[in-house]
Protein backbone atom coordinates (compact mmCIF):
# COMPACT_ATOMS: atom_id res chain seq x y z
CA UNK A 1 0.00 0.00 0.00
CA UNK A 2 2.85 2.36 0.83
CA UNK A 3 4.42 1.74 -2.59
CA UNK A 4 1.07 2.30 -4.29
CA UNK A 5 0.51 5.59 -2.59
CA UNK A 6 4.01 6.99 -2.66
CA UNK A 7 5.95 5.46 -5.53
CA UNK A 8 3.84 3.73 -8.16
CA UNK A 9 1.07 1.19 -8.51
CA UNK A 10 2.93 -0.58 -11.29
CA UNK A 11 5.27 -3.46 -10.55
CA UNK A 12 8.90 -2.52 -11.24
CA UNK A 13 12.15 -4.48 -11.29
CA UNK A 14 14.64 -4.07 -8.46
CA UNK A 15 16.90 -1.54 -10.19
CA UNK A 16 14.03 0.68 -11.25
CA UNK A 17 12.44 0.48 -7.81
CA UNK A 18 15.74 1.41 -6.14
CA UNK A 19 16.02 4.45 -8.39
CA UNK A 20 12.44 5.51 -7.69
CA UNK A 21 12.93 5.18 -3.94
CA UNK A 22 16.14 7.23 -4.11
CA UNK A 23 14.32 9.91 -6.07
CA UNK A 24 11.43 9.89 -3.62
CA UNK A 25 13.67 10.57 -0.63
CA UNK A 26 16.01 12.97 -2.41
CA UNK A 27 15.77 16.52 -1.05
CA UNK A 28 19.05 17.85 -2.45
CA UNK A 29 17.43 20.30 -4.85
CA UNK A 30 15.35 22.36 -2.43
CA UNK A 31 16.12 21.23 1.11
CA UNK A 32 14.43 19.05 3.70
CA UNK A 33 11.74 21.56 4.74
CA UNK A 34 10.58 21.95 1.14
CA UNK A 35 10.69 18.20 0.62
CA UNK A 36 8.26 17.84 3.54
CA UNK A 37 6.02 20.60 2.14
CA UNK A 38 6.00 18.96 -1.29
CA UNK A 39 5.17 15.49 0.04
CA UNK A 40 2.45 16.82 2.30
CA UNK A 41 0.85 18.74 -0.57
CA UNK A 42 0.95 15.63 -2.78
CA UNK A 43 -0.85 13.61 -0.13
CA UNK A 44 -3.55 16.04 0.95
CA UNK A 45 -3.96 18.76 -1.68
CA UNK A 46 -3.54 17.06 -5.06
CA UNK A 47 -6.16 17.23 -7.81
CA UNK A 48 -7.78 14.33 -5.97
CA UNK A 49 -7.52 15.73 -2.47
CA UNK A 50 -8.01 14.01 0.84
CA UNK A 51 -11.77 13.49 1.39
CA UNK A 52 -11.77 15.88 4.33
CA UNK A 53 -10.16 18.62 2.23
CA UNK A 54 -12.75 17.99 -0.50
CA UNK A 55 -15.52 18.30 2.09
CA UNK A 56 -14.04 21.49 3.56
CA UNK A 57 -14.49 23.35 0.29
CA UNK A 58 -18.16 23.55 1.24
CA UNK A 59 -18.55 21.90 4.64
CA UNK A 60 -21.85 20.81 6.10
CA UNK A 61 -22.76 21.72 9.65
CA UNK A 62 -22.25 18.09 10.65
CA UNK A 63 -18.74 17.94 9.20
CA UNK A 64 -17.80 21.01 11.23
CA UNK A 65 -19.31 19.42 14.34
CA UNK A 66 -17.27 16.27 13.71
CA UNK A 67 -14.23 18.47 13.22
CA UNK A 68 -14.83 20.12 16.62
CA UNK A 69 -15.10 16.88 18.57
CA UNK A 70 -12.17 14.99 17.07
CA UNK A 71 -9.97 18.08 16.96
CA UNK A 72 -10.64 18.79 20.62
CA UNK A 73 -8.98 15.45 21.46
CA UNK A 74 -6.19 16.13 19.00
CA UNK A 75 -5.45 19.52 20.63
CA UNK A 76 -5.34 18.03 24.11
CA UNK A 77 -2.58 15.73 22.86
CA UNK A 78 -0.97 18.55 20.92
CA UNK A 79 0.06 20.55 24.00
CA UNK A 80 1.39 17.40 25.68
CA UNK A 81 3.52 16.71 22.61
CA UNK A 82 4.86 20.27 22.60
CA UNK A 83 5.65 19.95 26.32
CA UNK A 84 7.60 16.72 25.74
CA UNK A 85 9.65 18.50 23.09
CA UNK A 86 10.40 21.40 25.45
CA UNK A 87 11.44 19.00 28.19
CA UNK A 88 13.74 16.99 25.96
CA UNK A 89 15.42 19.71 23.92
CA UNK A 90 18.19 21.97 25.15
CA UNK A 91 17.79 24.29 22.17
CA UNK A 92 16.51 27.71 23.18
CA UNK A 93 14.87 28.48 19.80
CA UNK A 94 12.97 25.18 19.91
CA UNK A 95 11.75 25.76 23.46
CA UNK A 96 10.62 29.31 22.67
CA UNK A 97 8.79 28.11 19.58
CA UNK A 98 6.96 25.35 21.46
CA UNK A 99 6.05 27.61 24.38
CA UNK A 100 4.51 30.17 22.04
CA UNK A 101 2.61 27.40 20.34
CA UNK A 102 1.19 25.99 23.60
CA UNK A 103 0.33 29.49 24.74
CA UNK A 104 -1.74 30.19 21.63
CA UNK A 105 -3.60 26.91 21.96
CA UNK A 106 -4.56 27.32 25.60
CA UNK A 107 -4.25 31.04 26.43
CA UNK A 108 -4.53 32.92 23.14
CA UNK A 109 -2.33 35.79 22.13
CA UNK A 110 -3.08 39.45 22.80
CA UNK A 111 -6.81 39.95 22.42
CA UNK A 112 -7.25 36.65 20.58
CA UNK A 113 -9.03 33.81 22.29
CA UNK A 114 -7.22 30.48 22.80
CA UNK A 115 -7.53 28.20 19.78
CA UNK A 116 -9.15 25.49 21.86
CA UNK A 117 -11.82 27.97 22.97
CA UNK A 118 -12.40 29.18 19.41
CA UNK A 119 -12.93 25.54 18.44
CA UNK A 120 -15.45 24.87 21.20
CA UNK A 121 -17.27 28.13 20.43
CA UNK A 122 -17.58 27.07 16.79
CA UNK A 123 -19.20 23.85 18.00
CA UNK A 124 -21.62 25.73 20.25
CA UNK A 125 -22.61 28.04 17.41
CA UNK A 126 -23.57 24.92 15.41
CA UNK A 127 -25.63 23.46 18.27
CA UNK A 128 -22.96 21.20 19.78
CA UNK A 129 -22.66 21.87 23.55
CA UNK A 130 -19.08 22.10 24.80
CA UNK A 131 -19.75 19.65 27.63
CA UNK A 132 -20.70 17.05 25.08
CA UNK A 133 -17.38 17.55 23.27
CA UNK A 134 -15.31 17.55 26.44
CA UNK A 135 -16.91 14.40 27.83
CA UNK A 136 -16.73 12.48 24.53
CA UNK A 137 -14.17 9.79 23.69
CA UNK A 138 -12.16 10.08 20.48
CA UNK A 139 -13.06 7.76 17.60
CA UNK A 140 -10.62 4.84 17.05
CA UNK A 141 -8.61 6.54 14.26
CA UNK A 142 -8.19 9.65 16.38
CA UNK A 143 -7.16 7.51 19.33
CA UNK A 144 -4.57 5.68 17.22
CA UNK A 145 -3.16 9.01 16.04
CA UNK A 146 -3.04 10.45 19.56
CA UNK A 147 -1.29 7.34 20.84
CA UNK A 148 1.26 7.56 18.03
CA UNK A 149 2.02 11.26 18.61
CA UNK A 150 2.23 10.70 22.35
CA UNK A 151 4.64 7.79 21.92
CA UNK A 152 6.88 9.58 19.44
CA UNK A 153 7.15 12.72 21.54
CA UNK A 154 7.58 10.86 24.82
CA UNK A 155 9.94 8.09 23.71
CA UNK A 156 11.85 9.32 20.65
CA UNK A 157 14.28 12.14 19.97
CA UNK A 158 12.63 15.56 20.31
CA UNK A 159 13.40 16.34 16.67
CA UNK A 160 11.31 13.35 15.55
CA UNK A 161 8.49 14.58 17.77
CA UNK A 162 8.83 18.03 16.31
CA UNK A 163 8.59 16.93 12.68
CA UNK A 164 5.77 14.50 13.49
CA UNK A 165 3.68 17.26 15.05
CA UNK A 166 4.49 20.47 13.26
CA UNK A 167 4.58 19.16 9.70
CA UNK A 168 0.84 18.63 10.24
CA UNK A 169 0.29 22.37 10.55
CA UNK A 170 0.83 22.54 6.80
CA UNK A 171 -2.80 21.48 6.56
CA UNK A 172 -3.94 25.06 7.15
CA UNK A 173 -0.99 26.82 5.52
CA UNK A 174 -2.17 29.45 3.05
CA UNK A 175 1.00 28.98 1.04
CA UNK A 176 0.31 25.37 0.00
CA UNK A 177 -0.56 26.54 -3.51
CA UNK A 178 3.03 27.69 -3.89
CA UNK A 179 4.03 24.04 -3.48
CA UNK A 180 1.66 22.74 -6.12
CA UNK A 181 -1.61 22.36 -4.19
CA UNK A 182 -4.79 22.25 -6.25
CA UNK A 183 -6.86 23.17 -3.19
CA UNK A 184 -6.50 25.12 0.02
CA UNK A 185 -7.68 23.89 3.41
CA UNK A 186 -11.05 25.52 2.87
CA UNK A 187 -12.55 27.83 0.31
CA UNK A 188 -11.76 31.35 1.65
CA UNK A 189 -15.22 32.42 0.43
CA UNK A 190 -16.50 30.71 3.60
CA UNK A 191 -15.09 33.67 5.53
CA UNK A 192 -17.42 36.02 3.65
CA UNK A 193 -20.38 33.63 3.44
CA UNK A 194 -23.20 32.72 5.80
CA UNK A 195 -21.21 30.50 8.19
CA UNK A 196 -21.67 31.36 11.87
CA UNK A 197 -19.39 34.18 13.13
CA UNK A 198 -17.75 31.67 15.52
CA UNK A 199 -16.98 29.33 12.59
CA UNK A 200 -15.36 32.20 10.72
CA UNK A 201 -13.38 33.19 13.83
CA UNK A 202 -12.03 29.67 14.25
CA UNK A 203 -11.15 29.13 10.60
CA UNK A 204 -9.59 32.58 10.27
CA UNK A 205 -7.39 32.07 13.36
CA UNK A 206 -6.03 28.76 12.09
CA UNK A 207 -5.57 30.21 8.64
CA UNK A 208 -3.49 33.06 9.99
CA UNK A 209 -1.58 31.19 12.69
CA UNK A 210 -0.53 28.03 10.94
CA UNK A 211 1.34 29.85 8.19
CA UNK A 212 4.14 30.86 10.48
CA UNK A 213 3.65 27.86 12.78
CA UNK A 214 4.52 25.32 10.14
CA UNK A 215 7.04 27.50 8.36
CA UNK A 216 9.05 28.33 11.49
CA UNK A 217 8.91 24.77 12.76
CA UNK A 218 10.02 23.19 9.48
CA UNK A 219 12.91 25.61 9.26
CA UNK A 220 13.98 24.53 12.76
CA UNK A 221 13.54 20.88 11.78
CA UNK A 222 15.72 21.37 8.72
CA UNK A 223 18.42 23.16 10.72
CA UNK A 224 18.64 20.54 13.48
CA UNK A 225 18.24 17.53 11.18
CA UNK A 226 21.34 18.65 9.33
CA UNK A 227 23.23 19.47 12.51
CA UNK A 228 22.34 16.14 14.17
CA UNK A 229 22.59 14.16 10.91
CA UNK A 230 19.07 12.84 11.34
CA UNK A 231 17.59 13.66 7.94
CA UNK A 232 16.55 10.10 7.05
CA UNK A 233 14.84 9.51 10.41
CA UNK A 234 13.08 12.86 10.10
CA UNK A 235 11.76 11.85 6.68
CA UNK A 236 10.55 8.49 7.99
CA UNK A 237 8.73 9.95 10.98
CA UNK A 238 7.15 12.64 8.82
CA UNK A 239 5.77 9.95 6.49
CA UNK A 240 4.46 7.90 9.42
CA UNK A 241 2.85 10.92 10.99
CA UNK A 242 1.09 12.08 7.83
CA UNK A 243 -0.42 8.60 7.47
CA UNK A 244 -1.83 8.79 11.00
CA UNK A 245 -3.04 12.29 10.25
CA UNK A 246 -4.84 11.14 7.12
CA UNK A 247 -6.74 8.54 9.16
CA UNK A 248 -7.50 11.13 11.83
CA UNK A 249 -8.99 13.50 9.21
CA UNK A 250 -11.25 10.64 8.14
CA UNK A 251 -12.36 10.33 11.77
CA UNK A 252 -13.57 13.95 11.62
CA UNK A 253 -15.76 12.97 8.66
CA UNK A 254 -16.90 9.80 10.42
CA UNK A 255 -17.92 11.77 13.51
CA UNK A 256 -19.80 14.21 11.29
CA UNK A 257 -21.76 11.34 9.74
CA UNK A 258 -22.59 10.02 13.21
CA UNK A 259 -23.93 13.43 14.24
CA UNK A 260 -25.93 13.67 11.02
CA UNK A 261 -27.65 10.35 11.78
CA UNK A 262 -28.28 11.23 15.37
CA UNK A 263 -29.28 14.92 15.38
Amino acid at each position, binding site marked *: *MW*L*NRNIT*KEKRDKEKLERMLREFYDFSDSGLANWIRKRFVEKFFSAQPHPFIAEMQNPSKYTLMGYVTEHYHFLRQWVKSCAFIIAKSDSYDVQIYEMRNISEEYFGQGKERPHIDLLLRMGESLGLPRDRVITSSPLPATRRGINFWNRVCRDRHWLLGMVSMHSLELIADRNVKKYGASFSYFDPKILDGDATPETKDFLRAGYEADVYHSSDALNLVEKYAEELKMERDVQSYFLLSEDKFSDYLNARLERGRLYEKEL
Partner: protein
Amino acid sequence: MKRNYEGCALCDATWGDYWRVVDGENMFFCCSICADAFENMVNEVKKVTGWERIDEIKIEGNY
Protein backbone atom coordinates in the same frame (compact mmCIF):
# COMPACT_ATOMS: atom_id res chain seq x y z
CA MET B 1 -17.22 -10.86 -12.25
CA LYS B 2 -16.35 -8.22 -14.85
CA ARG B 3 -14.15 -5.46 -13.43
CA ASN B 4 -12.73 -2.17 -14.67
CA TYR B 5 -9.27 -2.97 -13.25
CA GLU B 6 -6.65 -5.34 -14.57
CA GLY B 7 -4.37 -5.34 -11.50
CA CYS B 8 -5.44 -5.77 -7.89
CA ALA B 9 -9.22 -6.09 -7.88
CA LEU B 10 -9.51 -3.23 -5.41
CA CYS B 11 -6.70 -0.75 -6.12
CA ASP B 12 -5.40 -1.83 -9.55
CA ALA B 13 -1.80 -2.14 -8.32
CA THR B 14 0.34 -4.76 -10.01
CA TRP B 15 2.61 -5.29 -6.99
CA GLY B 16 2.23 -8.30 -4.73
CA ASP B 17 0.86 -11.76 -5.30
CA TYR B 18 -2.11 -12.43 -3.07
CA TRP B 19 -5.00 -14.52 -4.34
CA ARG B 20 -8.44 -15.10 -2.85
CA VAL B 21 -11.65 -16.67 -4.08
CA VAL B 22 -14.42 -14.06 -4.01
CA ASP B 23 -17.89 -14.84 -5.33
CA GLY B 24 -16.56 -18.13 -6.73
CA GLU B 25 -13.71 -16.54 -8.68
CA ASN B 26 -9.98 -16.69 -7.83
CA MET B 27 -8.91 -13.04 -7.87
CA PHE B 28 -5.55 -11.28 -7.79
CA PHE B 29 -4.91 -8.72 -5.04
CA CYS B 30 -1.77 -6.81 -4.11
CA CYS B 31 -2.24 -7.63 -0.41
CA SER B 32 -4.62 -9.18 2.13
CA ILE B 33 -5.90 -5.71 3.17
CA CYS B 34 -7.22 -5.04 -0.33
CA ALA B 35 -8.70 -8.54 -0.46
CA ASP B 36 -10.51 -7.96 2.86
CA ALA B 37 -11.86 -4.61 1.67
CA PHE B 38 -13.01 -6.01 -1.69
CA GLU B 39 -14.64 -9.04 -0.12
CA ASN B 40 -16.44 -6.89 2.46
CA MET B 41 -17.63 -4.57 -0.29
CA VAL B 42 -19.04 -7.45 -2.34
CA ASN B 43 -20.73 -9.00 0.71
CA GLU B 44 -22.20 -5.67 1.76
CA VAL B 45 -23.63 -4.98 -1.69
CA LYS B 46 -25.19 -8.45 -1.76
CA LYS B 47 -26.62 -7.98 1.73
CA VAL B 48 -28.13 -4.57 0.98
CA THR B 49 -29.53 -5.46 -2.46
CA GLY B 50 -30.40 -9.10 -1.89
CA TRP B 51 -28.55 -10.07 -5.09
CA GLU B 52 -27.18 -13.60 -5.21
CA ARG B 53 -24.23 -12.68 -7.41
CA ILE B 54 -22.65 -9.62 -8.98
CA ASP B 55 -21.97 -9.67 -12.73
CA GLU B 56 -19.95 -6.47 -13.02
CA ILE B 57 -18.33 -4.00 -10.69
CA LYS B 58 -16.86 -0.58 -11.50
CA ILE B 59 -14.74 1.15 -8.88
CA GLU B 60 -14.20 4.90 -9.12
CA GLY B 61 -11.96 7.19 -7.11
CA ASN B 62 -8.39 6.49 -6.16
CA TYR B 63 -7.49 8.56 -3.14
